[in-house]
């Protein structure tokens, strides 16, 4: 069954604008802005984490229970991504041993930055929240993971999900 969420007008733009402002705010309110890059990225990622937890609770409220990990990843690529970014992930690859690579060729949150390589070094700031979002969603579904993202050319974005199972 497809996810049916109420259609609201212009709900995509406010989120993008808010996201950009959040990044600006975190960097300007930190004492040393750019030099605290690591800490700011972590703040953004943690924000995304909490939002991801709540969002996935809402999205999976009416879906059937997931069969396995791949089922979960497919859900993230289709329903979850569509809910947040209005499109699906373009490509999903896995090595079947816990590493998944999701590719979005036209990542919405990078759309405001110019295409090409000029602002490549700024890209991580814009990816942190989304990485946290995915990590939070997975965490609430019972999957412990590390999510990192790479950009080689704007606006294509390749989040890399490393799922590490903790075994003793």
């Amino acid at each position: 069954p497809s996810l049916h969420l109420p259609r609201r007008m212009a709900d995509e733009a406010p989120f993008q604008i808010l996201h950009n402002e959040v990044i600006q705010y975190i960097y300007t309110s930190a004492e040393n802005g750019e030099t605290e890059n690591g800490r700011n990225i972590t703040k953004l990622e943690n924000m995304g984490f909490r939002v991801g937890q709540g969002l996935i609770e809402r999205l999976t409220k009416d879906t059937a229970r997931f069969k396995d990990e791949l089922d979960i990843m497919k859900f993230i690529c289709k329903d979850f991504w569509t809910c947040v970014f209005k499109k699906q992930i373009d490509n999903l690859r896995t090595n079947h041993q816990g590493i998944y690579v999701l590719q979005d060729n036209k990542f919405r949150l990078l759309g405001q930055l110019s295409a090409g390589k000029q602002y490549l070094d700024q890209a991580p700031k814009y990816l942190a929240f989304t990485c946290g979002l995915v990590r939070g969603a997975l965490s609430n579904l019972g999957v412990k993971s590390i999510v990192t993202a790479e950009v080689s050319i704007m606006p294509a974005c390749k989040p890399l999900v490393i799922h590490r199972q903790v075994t003793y």
Partner: protein
Amino acid sequence: MAVCIAVIAKENYPLYIRSVPTQNELKFHYTVHTSLDVVEEKISAVGKSLGDQRELYLGLLYPTEDYKVYGYVTNSKVKFVIVVDSSNTSLRDNEIRSMFRKLHNSFTDVMCNPFHNPGDPIQSKAFDGIVSGMMVQTG
């Protein structure tokens, strides 16, 4: 109408538990705790039996002399347990299902509340209200 409603985290500790009458609280805690084993059994029995194993509603977990215990598990592995009086035969499956749906809806709202920290006990008044509406009223 339930005599006890509980919400259990995926790590199997209670996030919320309320029972009526309150003198028997310990007994209900125990009942809910033992029902967790049955829940685990049902969740892990995927593919072994026929029927819709992907459903969130788990049905009657086990009947005791005085009570019937029903279970429900969310995709985030949070479990809801409802205990009703055995003598309450008028309560049908559909009604129990709708009680669980209401709980799930309210729980989702709690999760989305930015002031709530996942893993903490539920302190939402709205959630309390929903649960009160489902519990047996004592005079």
